[in-house]
């Protein structure tokens, strides 16, 4: 077995703490491999009972159709409540403003929608699939991460977490982000998916797709992505390493159409996962700045 079992027991234990310590926790579900892993862990944590959390999907409107199809299939399969927060509603109501230009993305707008959904549904905890190995600001994240009424993260004033003790006590209005797979790496997640034989959206596997090449990166052609007149569309065999918003998720040239070959490619690859996400390249501290302002 390639997957470190200890991490599964740890994650299940964190999920049970979340269920026990909070009144209305929910799982943030993006349709990506990390949130699919969370759902599997929740199934295991509460079996034979039902998962005591609804799924929350923050829908930018710029999704890969394959991801939405997968989401709806999974929701039906495990019979779980799904709450969708539409970014478009916040744009229409003037609470969020669409970005302009070549690199426009709705990724940062998700924060507004997430905070609205938290408030509307009176959620006191949101379980997310973030991992500390993804990015340097996340390396300092707690497992129970307390956010104020505005969803803000106070990096310098975090509660210490010692041994396996998780302290989820909060004041009214505050809420907690819970990260059960904090200690997993990208490879751990892939090995887990393989060993558990979990279904994942098809865009994780190599397929033919129309892309444009910009800044040495392949961008999936869609209605949501800005394209210069001189940028040419080409057809390539690609796969995606994350399934974020279509406007900020780059494709990788790949021949890997099975889990085994995808994992082999990851092992061989020298670009880390977030290197394919445009949103982090905007500034060196991009991730930390977004976390401070309430991003997940």
């Amino acid at each position, binding site marked *: 077995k390639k997957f470190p079992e200890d991490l599964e027991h740890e994650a299940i234990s964190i999920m049970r703490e979340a269920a026990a310590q909070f009144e209305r926790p929910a799982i943030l579900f993006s349709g990506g491999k990390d949130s699919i892993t969370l759902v599997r862990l929740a199934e295991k944590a509460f079996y034979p009972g039902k998962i005591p959390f609804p799924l929350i999907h923050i829908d930018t409107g710029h999704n890969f159709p394959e991801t939405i199809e997968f989401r709806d299939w999974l929701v039906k399969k495990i019979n779980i409540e799904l709450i969708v927060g539409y970014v478009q509603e916040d744009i229409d109501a003037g609470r969020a403003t669409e970005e302009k230009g070549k690199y426009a993305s709705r990724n940062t707008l998700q924060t507004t929608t997430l905070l609205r959904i938290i408030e509307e549904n009176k959620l006191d905890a949101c379980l997310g699939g973030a991992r500390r190995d993804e990015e340097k600001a996340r390396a300092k994240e707690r497992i129970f991460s307390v956010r104020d009424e505005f969803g803000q993260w106070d990096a310098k004033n975090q509660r210490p977490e010692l041994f*396996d003790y998780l302290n989820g006590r909060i004041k009214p209005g505050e809420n907690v982000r819970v990260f059960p797979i904090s200690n997993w790496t990208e490879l751990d997640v892939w090995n887990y998916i393989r060993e558990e034989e979990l279904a994942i959206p098809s865009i994780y596997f190599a397929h033919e797709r129309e892309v444009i090449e910009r800044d040495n990166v392949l961008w999936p052609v869609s209605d949501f992505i800005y394209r210069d007149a001189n940028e040419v569309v080409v057809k390539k065999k690609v796969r995606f390493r994350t399934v974020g918003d279509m406007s900020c998720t780059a494709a990788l040239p790949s021949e890997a159409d099975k889990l085994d070959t995808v994992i082999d490619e990851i092992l061989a690859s020298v670009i880390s996962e977030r290197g394919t996400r445009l949103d982090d390249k905007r500034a060196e*501290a991009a991730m930390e700045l977004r976390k401070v302002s309430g991003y997940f």
Partner: protein
Amino acid sequence: MEVLRISTAGSVDDGKSTLIGRLLYETNSITVDKLEAIERASQRKGIGFLDLSLLTDGLIAEREQGITIDVAHIYFHTRNRKFIITDAPGHVEYTRNMITGASKADVSIILIDARKGVLEQTHRHYFISNLLRISKVIVCVNKMDLVGFEEGPFREIEKTFLDFAKEIQSSGPASAEAGSAPARQDITVMPVSSLLGDNITRKSESMAWFKGEPLLAILESIQVNTDLDRKPVRFPVQYVIRPRNESHHDFRGYAGRMLSGRLRVGDEVIVQPSGRKSKVSRISFFDKELQEATAKESVVVELADNVDVSRGDWLVPVDQSAALRTELEANICWLNAEPFNAGKVYLLQQGTSISKAKVTQINYVQVPSTLEKTTPTSLKMNDIASVKIKAAKPLLIDNFDENKSNGAFILVDEYSNNTVAVGVAL
């Protein structure tokens, strides 16, 4: 695959970042884009070389001030082991971060600069490793290239360190009464050069006089948690699963993580603190039925009788229970900026049980670097103290020395909700 948790500590400039960077580099754990990001950041800061410390110093404030102020987590793996490093800064004002980082560690790596030898901070780092009963301590005497790779200076540092370690073992935390060295702590002192890679992943050719294994080989072969299964069973109930659906109408399962021991189907158990008795009728992990559960496993336990069990209770075999305690002797570290208030009631969390508690007496505060003891009336952030505690509810807490997995607790402030102290029971 096994997981080994490592905590690292060292004074500024001892080469901790270089050492971690070297381990990552030699195990192919740094990706090209991360290296490039570090290159760009190094250039912006106007330094000519690759500053590997940028790999671990994540937060903006830290990058601006050039110091590490929190605990960072670093991951790498080799063929059959996954490693998690928690890296905390070494200054006295970050004692609490060091304790946080070390609380889950199987191994503690302490760095010493070969030119400077054992410093005040080295004492503190070892004091904490001893307080937390970390079973393996590796002391890396770094920058050996700067002392000509010579055995003499190394042996001198080794002796100074081991002498001080002995002194801490006999008059440091917890041992005054017990009068014994911590059980099963194994100390290795080794000469390395992080910059050149000597004795990190390969044996040093320049130091043929040193016969020990390189650091990575030691990390790969250390046995982890081998004794937990042999301890008495400690199973704190986290959550009660009651599906109340057609197929599982009367199902009542107690979900929790085994802290220690082996719990078997058929075991007569006692529910603590209530004292009710029953028998384990079934143990499961998801849809798999198990004959026994062992330490660190998150399982579901069912009992033969419909006894009252809820979160905060412990399940233990009748012959493995310990005396319940409401009064404790403990060593605590104060973690909060707001000092300890003698009259105040705090919440003590141990296992999944939460009880109101009071610190009734401060026996003494001990300075880790000098072992000097004082008896203040209050505690400030980073103080390590021997205290008496009184809890409102009876606790099934073990002596930390005998069973680490069930001997620690935290204190929470009811008003701010902050975790204000961590303690280990004697």
